[in-house]
């Protein structure tokens, strides 16, 4: 594996074989003041931008085993270097899954996905990985190997420290092992795809599909650039007109899914949907392809969050910022959740222009209580986090965050300069 990060190779690569090894590595790195970049599958290293120093790449490939899995308990513990795909392959023969479908599951590791706060398309129906993570073993920056939570589905002993590591970009510790609650795979899953020509109609459709009797597990709105970027969707909308495409997924018994699909089709027709199509076979490949929209492509990838009551405004701001500049940007809204992803092409665009557009978008979102984060900062000349502000203004809890980081990574060796603290 290549551990080059923003054209910078590490001085050394270390590959611990056990959680204890991992903790020892961090203890030594802390003592020596060597900066450490924890490395899982490398699929999300564009989050946070380049580190201020890069001495050690800490490869997690030696920690990739299933630690414990008792199908009858619906609980699995895995080492953090295991890929999510491997976890799903372990669960599937028992009719179970971890209902979490971030991009590139065959390469991305469980630890990396947790640390980078990777979401997925199933969030509407199943919540976020925070809801499914029961416990962790983590090597803290100072070399303590600590656990929190448990391997049972309910536990209130101790603080839920594992939640602190989700989305912390490895700045508090390196996840060594995670325990998840898992779920039975629903017997049938089916997807409806509808195309609309106005911005408001898909939002109205989404609003109706969140009302009884509907229980969609995933809903997305894609603009036509996004549809084009997802080849798996091309068979559905053959004429490639300027559509906004809504994909909605239902799960359950055949009867419950069929009733929802029938009613959803009726709603979409009433709202003026031009085309409605259904997948007849397994819809998993469609959703894997939609999830992979968020993978690194060389574009600037943004993640936008806004309150559910402000989804129209969120989309309008995304649209206006780029249209005024003549940029063709692909956009996907994770509907019913309050998240969106947008890809901004950077080829030929000066970094200063990108920075100005980002600042404008950020200011607009701030007025509706939203935020924007650079989910993937591509490695390109002139593109740097000195120019592009990855995280935006720090939250009001910054002092508490600093104090926590100082307690667990006192030497500040973990991913320095890549996070808010």
């Amino acid at each position, binding site marked *: 594996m290549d551990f080059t990060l923003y054209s910078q190779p590490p001085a050394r690569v270390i590959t611990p074989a056990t959680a204890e090894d991992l903790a020892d590595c961090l203890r030594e790195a802390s003592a020596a003041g060597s900066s450490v970049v924890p490395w899982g599958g490398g699929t999300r290293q564009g989050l946070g931008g380049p580190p201020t120093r890069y001495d050690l790449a800490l490869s997690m490939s030696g920690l990739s085993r299933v630690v414990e899995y008792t199908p009858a308990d*619906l609980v699995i513990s895995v080492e953090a270097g295991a890929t999510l795909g491997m976890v799903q392959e372990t669960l599937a023969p028992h009719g179970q899954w971890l209902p979490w479908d971030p991009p590139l599951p065959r390469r991305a590791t469980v630890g990396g996905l947790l640390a980078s706060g990777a979401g997925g398309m199933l969030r509407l129906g199943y919540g976020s990985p925070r809801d499914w993570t029961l416990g962790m073993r983590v090597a803290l920056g100072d070399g303590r190997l600590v656990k929190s939570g448990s391997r049972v589905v309910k536990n*209130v002993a101790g603080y839920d420290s594992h939640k602190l590591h989700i*989305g912390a970009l490895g700045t508090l510790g390196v996840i060594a092992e995670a325990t998840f609650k898992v779920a039975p795979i629903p017997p049938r899953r089916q997807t409806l795809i509808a195309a609309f020509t106005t911005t408001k109609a898909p939002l109205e459709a989404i609003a109706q599909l969140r009302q009884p009797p509907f229980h969609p597990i995933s809903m997305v709105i894609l603009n036509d650039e996004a549809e084009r970027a997802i080849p798996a969707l091309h068979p559905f909308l053959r004429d490639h007109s300027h559509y906004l495409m809504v994909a909605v997924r239902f799960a359950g018994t055949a009867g*419950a899914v069929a009733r929802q699909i029938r009613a959803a089709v009726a709603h979409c027709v009433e709202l003026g949907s031009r085309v409605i199509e259904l997948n007849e076979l397994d819809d998993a490949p469609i959703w894997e392809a939609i999830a992979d929209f968020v993978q690194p492509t060389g574009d600037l990838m943004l993640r936008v969050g806004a309150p559910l009551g402000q989804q129209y405004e969120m989309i309008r701001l995304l649209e206006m910022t780029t249209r005024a500049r003549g940029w063709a940007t692909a956009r996907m809204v994770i509907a019913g959740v309050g998240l969106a992803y947008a890809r901004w092409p950077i080829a030929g665009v000066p970094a200063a222009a990108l920075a100005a557009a980002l600042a404008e978008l950020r200011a607009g979102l701030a007025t509706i209580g939203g*935020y924007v984060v650079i989910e993937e900062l591509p490695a390109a000349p002139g593109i740097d986090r000195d120019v592009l502000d990855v995280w935006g203004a720090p939250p009001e809890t910054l002092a508490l965050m600093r104090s926590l980081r100082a307690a667990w990574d006192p030497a500040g060796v973990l991913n320095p300069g890549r996070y808010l603290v």
Partner: protein
Amino acid sequence: MTRETLIAALQSAIGPTCVLHRPEELMLYEYDGSSLDQALPDVVVVPGSTAEVAAAVRAATGMGVPVVVRGAGTGLAGGTVPDRGGMVVSLARLNRVLSIDPASRTAVVQPGVVNTELSVAAAPYGMHFAPDPSSQRSSTVGGNAGSNAGGPHCLKYGVTTNHVLAATVVLADGSVVRLGSTVPDAPGYDLLGAVVGSEGTLGIITELTVRLTRNAEDVRTFLVIFDEMDAAGACVSAIIAAGIIPAALEMMSGEGIAAIEASVHAGYPPDARAVLLIEIDGLREDLADEARRIAEVCTASGARELRTAADSAQRERLWAGRKGALAACARIAPHYHIVDGVVPRSRLPEVLRYSEEVAARYDLKVVNIFHAGDGNLHPLLLFNLRVPGTRERAVAAGEEILRACVAAGGTISGEHGIGLEKRDYMSWLFSEDDLSAFADIRAVFDPTEMMNPGKLLRTGAPSADQAPTQAFRRTTERGAWI
């Protein structure tokens, strides 16, 4: 610093009427729902706003006075007992539902709102607050968050932490922070995740934004009757192993069933050795399928009978039995020690059997009334305090059962919390390093350890009289079981 100085400072900070200090006022705040320990606070404040909570906390901690937050006092682990004296902050006046947003399915509430009142307020929108601890008619949303409370329907819908999106928190120095967000994945450490379930040791929650859950299209409730407890336990394991996650899967065993029937007339057969209360909810086609599969598993597990609630009145009767179970057991013996262990669900039958063996060995009556689907055991060890030595036997038996839960790969508390009761059991699960990391979190929020000191973790100045058995003794001497 004298107590009089503190009272005067608080009176000037938040006004005299909301500062309670007369002995008869303080006595109402010396216990929680466990009767594990009792201790009088020096003063109680009943603030009416976040600003007043902050002012009171600032005044107290500035004088080195510890602060204990209290909702309805239904806790079962001694978490709100002011065992080191100091100031109790009652959130009883912060009891308003501030807003409900049906579009985003969220509610903004003050912490003193009673759990069921929130669901009542959400009912016109076809929604409810999913966490449903059995204390829900008196326990508060703030207290539920503080202890990360569970309840029967948490099997499908998750515990309180899964339903709290944001909180306003007063820290030990009187500063106010806003944690979490209704906007998903906003950048920053998930400090809210640490605060929920922190039992008042990190700060005082003065406002919460919680998730509301849409009411299900349809509900079905079953009572499954068993002549053998092993078969009932095995049936629970088999339902989960079959990949069926009901909305609730509760079990009641032994003499408790007859006691419940005598007390509540819920329709349980008094001669049953064990009953399961199973509820499924969702779309009606899914329910038909789940009902059929559950019936198959129950039959294969040797159930004597499976009854289906014919209407909502029958359903409510069945649930009244479960929710009134604790009180009904007073018919068997006047006092109880409730255990709150969790085991992997495949290990239920053996640990259930073991809990009965332990109770027999200690010559105690035991009734298991618990969240079987989660593997969350609640053996109720029943006794009469007037019989010398029984309380010690109950505590010792509870400890043995919890050790068995840990040995089976489980934990020492599923929902009631650590508080005072289980602080010394934490080392069964956690190493020195694990506990030091918890202590670090505490120090980040509360460097001088003023917020509920000594609860959850044994830190700070230890006092000699905190062993649970001694606490029991004090309680007995005062004859004040509730």
